[in-house]
């Protein structure tokens, strides 16, 4: 579970060293809290994005009438606009807490590999799907798009989604299997700030209709 990390205490005092390390320390461990914190950052970003895109809130709040409904509820006449954000937030928080808690009981190298797999899968799926959409554009193929309620849905037509998912799955399995351990270990802390970036890009992209009216 724990993993020893060597530090060269005698290393030259470079700029990053001056920024970060006032106390020289010989060695330390990746604690359970470290595993929890990194996993939470990644899981929360992914889950929040998925829940928002699929519009799966735990509850819907109607601020004009101060009323809460379980799960997703469309606006009702005379009750003002519904708010889903709180519901996505609570859903994402609980799910990410559960994932992170489970991760603290798993060997850290499994988690590191799982992150590599997830990132490869998402990246390859995006590229393959974009290429397939470009090739089959105008051929009446199905596509991922937002419906009137802002929910991500797959429209009818020749299915590009399943083959793209299958290719991404196989490539990510192979990639994460063959990636050397030390690479997975080196990449591991960086996922905490890398994963929220494409998540924000995707969330921002779904808001495009506001900027193109």
């Amino acid at each position, binding site marked *: 579970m724990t993993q020893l990390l060597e530090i060269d205490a005698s290393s030259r005092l470079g700029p990053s060293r001056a920024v970060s390390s006032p106390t020289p320390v010989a060695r330390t461990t990746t604690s359970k809290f470290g595993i929890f914190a990194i996993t939470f*950052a990644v899981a*929360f970003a992914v889950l929040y994005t998925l829940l928002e895109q699929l519009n799966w809130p735990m509850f819907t709040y109607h601020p004009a009438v101060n009323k809460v409904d379980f799960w997703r509820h469309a606006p009702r006449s005379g009750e003002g606009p519904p708010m889903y954000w709180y519901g996505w937030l609570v859903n994402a928080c609980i799910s990410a807490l559960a994932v992170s808690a489970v991760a603290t009981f798993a060997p850290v190298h499994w988690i590191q590999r799982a992150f590599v797999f997830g990132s490869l899968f998402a990246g390859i799926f995006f590229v393959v799907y974009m290429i397939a959409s470009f090739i089959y554009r105008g051929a009446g193929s199905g596509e991922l798009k937002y419906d009137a309620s802002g929910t991500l849905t797959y429209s009818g037509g020749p299915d590009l989604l399943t083959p793209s998912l299958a290719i991404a799955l196989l490539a990510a399995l192979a990639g994460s299997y063959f990636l050397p351990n030390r690479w997975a270990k080196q990449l591991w*802390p960086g996922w*905490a*700030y890398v994963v929220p970036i494409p998540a924000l890009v995707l969330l921002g992209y779904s808001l495009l209709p506001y900027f193109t009216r």
Partner: protein
Amino acid sequence: MDILAIMSGQTFWKILLFLHFLLAVALLATVTLQAVAVLMPARQVAGGFVDRLRPVPPAAYVAAIVFLYVPTFLLGAWVYVKYRTYVRIPMEQLGHWWTVGSFEFKEHVVTMGMGLLPAYWYFWRQPLLDEHAGTRKWLTLFLAFTVWYAFLIGHIANDFRGVGS
């Protein structure tokens, strides 16, 4: 005791919004100082204005940032209720779509910042590991981005319909 018996609902929400603003200013200052300290580590104490900000160790800001970020977020989430009914509807009616879209994005940006806080806290814990210096730097810059973005867009929304508008 019902707070609305003492003051009008409008005053109550304006006080909340102002508190949110005060916390946001403090957070903005703290996260900016840390970002400057991380980007331009001090090599000497004397110098110009920016040089004099740099000698404070970046780790000294961490607790303040976490303890400002959480209440600012929670207060913002509370005030958001009023925004949804009292501000956003007229914004849409007047066709301020860029402001509406930017504010929608703000909710995602600050949420991502909240999700990062445990990792941010973890990587800035003492003793600081040299090999995580890059991770600390990028986490700090990401948080600084979320705070700056939220502050600017919040300010624009407030100018539309808020305190002093």
